[in-house]
């Protein structure tokens, strides 16, 4: 009995360790001496969904891969376990391994990356979507934030221009500040082109329950409820739960002989959606994490790394809307007009 228990405990520990660092890849190592970079090691820790999420983390991976082609660097990327344990451990692993620049990809890294950055003052850290307070340009930590509200504004305008019912919907994964800025931008964009439009809002879960980012069933039922109440375009900022929205748009359209639309987030989700869902994906709000990752690596190699806060918006091309499928072709001129107004400052998009 005692021995069996001990065996079970050992097995559990083993599985925990295996799950915590189940995947590490080295995309490519370029040794060309003509490229800048002195073969420096760049580390990346992804957020929960990890590589292959077809979205946020894959985008970071693209930036990392591009940098490893252009510069003489070695890169290593790691994914924490599903429960998110091990974020800090993985970053410390890279730090003790002598990685001079380490990325934490996602807002959930706030506390962990701040702690590790404090313990390793000679290593530079960068967090995507981060919200660590009180940083200065001389800090060894930079927050790479995105003006997601600007992109959401554009897809909000696209939704309002496409809607026939005068009602559109927003599904947020988890009720947190970061997602509020998506909602604020979406609402402002929709109201910009149609002041009388009604925007329904649903958050799938509230913290500390973060399953709202990974539960397609919740996304689907919430979307079916919104479609049923008359919304005909829904924008999601719900990570993996978004798959449920696409499924719902297809199902609702086919069983009720009407056309309802879904809008994707973070990457051009038309490209990764299954063919049967593609006709229902109007556009996507694109957030190019790869741009921020690449720029940060480039600055680091050029010796221009600065701590503090950086915001990537429409202007830098890191935020945009997708045109795949051609469903927004007829309203593209209006959207681009709004885009120019935001870039020039004629329109200020709210963040909450």
């Amino acid at each position, binding site marked *: 009995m005692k021995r069996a*228990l001990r065996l*079970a405990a050992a097995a559990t520990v083993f599985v925990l360790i295996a799950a915590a660092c189940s*995947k590490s890849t080295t995309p490519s190592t370029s040794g060309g001496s003509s490229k800048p970079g002195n073969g420096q090691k760049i580390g990346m820790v992804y957020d929960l969904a990890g590589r*292959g999420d077809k979205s946020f983390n894959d985008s970071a991976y693209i930036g990392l891969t591009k940098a490893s082609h252009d510069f003489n660097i070695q890169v290593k990327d790691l994914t924490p376990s599903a429960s998110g344990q091990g974020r800090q451990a993985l970053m410390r692993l890279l730090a003790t391994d002598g990685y001079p620049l380490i990325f934490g990809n996602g807002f959930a890294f706030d506390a962990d990356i701040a702690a590790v950055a404090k313990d390793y003052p000679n290593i530079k850290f960068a967090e995507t979507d981060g919200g660590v307070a009180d940083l200065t340009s001389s800090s060894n930590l930079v927050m790479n934030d995105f003006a997601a509200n600007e992109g959401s504004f554009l897809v909000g305008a696209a939704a309002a221009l496409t809607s026939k019912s005068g009602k559109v919907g927003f599904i947020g994964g988890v009720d947190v500040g970061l997602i509020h800025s998506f909602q604020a931008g979406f609402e402002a964009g929709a109201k910009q082109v149609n002041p009388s439009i009604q925007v329904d809002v649903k*958050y799938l879960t509230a913290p500390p329950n973060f399953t709202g980012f990974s539960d397609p*069933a919740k996304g689907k039922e919430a979307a079916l409820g919104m479609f*049923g109440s008359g919304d005909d375009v829904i924008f999601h900022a719900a990570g993996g739960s978004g798959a449920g929205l696409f499924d719902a748009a297809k199902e609702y359209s086919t069983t009720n002989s009407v056309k309802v639309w879904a809008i994707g987030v973070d990457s051009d989700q038309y490209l990764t959606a299954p063919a049967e869902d593609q006709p229902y994906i109007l556009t996507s709000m694109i957030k190019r994490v790869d741009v921020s990752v690449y720029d940060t690596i480039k600055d680091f190699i050029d010796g221009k790394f600065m701590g503090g806060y950086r915001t990537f918006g429409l202007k830098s091309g890191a935020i945009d809307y997708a045109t795949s499928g051609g469903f927004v072709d007829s309203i593209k001129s209006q959207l681009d007009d709004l885009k120019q107004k935001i870039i020039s400052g004629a329109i200020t998009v709210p963040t909450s």
Partner: protein
Amino acid sequence: MKEIAARRLPTDRRGRLVRAAMLMVLVLLALSFVRLVTHASDLTSSGTFSATLRVSIPILLAALGGLYAERAGVVNIGLEGMMILGTWFGAWAGWHWGPWTGVLVGVMGGAAGGLLHAVATVTFGIDHIVSGVAINILAAGATRFLSVVAYTNVSGAGITQSPHVNGTIGELTLPVLAGGRFFGLKTPDFLGWLERQHWFFVSDLGALGKGLTAQVSLLTLLAVALIPLTYWLLWRTPFGLRLRSVGEHPMAAESLGVPVYTMKYIAVTISGALAGLGGVFLVLEEAGIYREGQVGGRGFIGLAALIFGNWRPGGVVVGAGLFGYSDALQLRSNTSIHGLLLFIAIAAAAVGLWFLIRSRVTTGVAAVVVASLVFWWFAGTKAVPDEFISITPYVVTLLVLAVAAQRLRPPAADGRPYRKGQAQ
């Protein structure tokens, strides 16, 4: 004596069914009243009822799985992990060979998890909770590892997500009543018409009928059919009697020649298979993909529904349905939750009165106090704060459990390790 008991049993059962049906009617009447007062039409829309069905099924299947295991005396806290195995294997096989193969392989994946639990708890006598927790952790880690192996170079997939499962499982819509096709001919949608009239009670009944008979997936039908099947198997066959005796008094069962270990093995493996089917349902009906973290605690909710249901199939259905209804409602419509407050106030008041009539003063007064507090909340506000809405199903389940928990009786030997030939 024996004769009397035999004669009384069916009458008792019929009485119980009649009481349950009357309670259902009362609940629907109250909901209908609340809908008229608050204009929260989603409270009794066919969309909500059909969502309730879909949201309940995974929880129901997990709970039925738990029923088999715990009736045989093995606590199965590993249901969550077995569901996770079901989602992964269901999606993987579904992607390769189509949805029905996915169902089969997903069920086998869950059953493998159950078998592991049986080996640990029955053969090695490990504490049931320890083994169950280990299986939950193992399933999460194993599926991550398997995704790395299976999906690394697959487009549209990755270490946390499977490719899309192509093809569907098929669905049925009742002809004439719910507007389904009959030999290719379109038939009228009588229940849908009834729902659109917005009459008191009648329309709500129509919506309920339509919600439960329109676009019902074959997998849903399979799951629903498992409820009477489980009841028959466990309470009406010698096999079921043996299985339950193992959970009540394994020593006595062994002395009568029941193969205790074998029965436990069978029960726990079935348990895993059913949980796996619940996972497959999540993949095929609600997402089309496997997604890490997709199960999201439904295995544990299923376990709660099992306890709520007093380890009986009928009770399990009510538990899963209650949770499914409140979850579907909060996902579909924020405004309906405000209307639900009024319903809770009415229900609590009714329960309070019932207790007071039965002269159980303390409980009765407590229920009436709850009723007036909830009513005060309903009357004094226009909406429920967003932070509360997503926890509605948990609050409702807790509330009802608080009332129902007074009469629960788990199987007598539930959770106790059993060694062959041990003396009492």
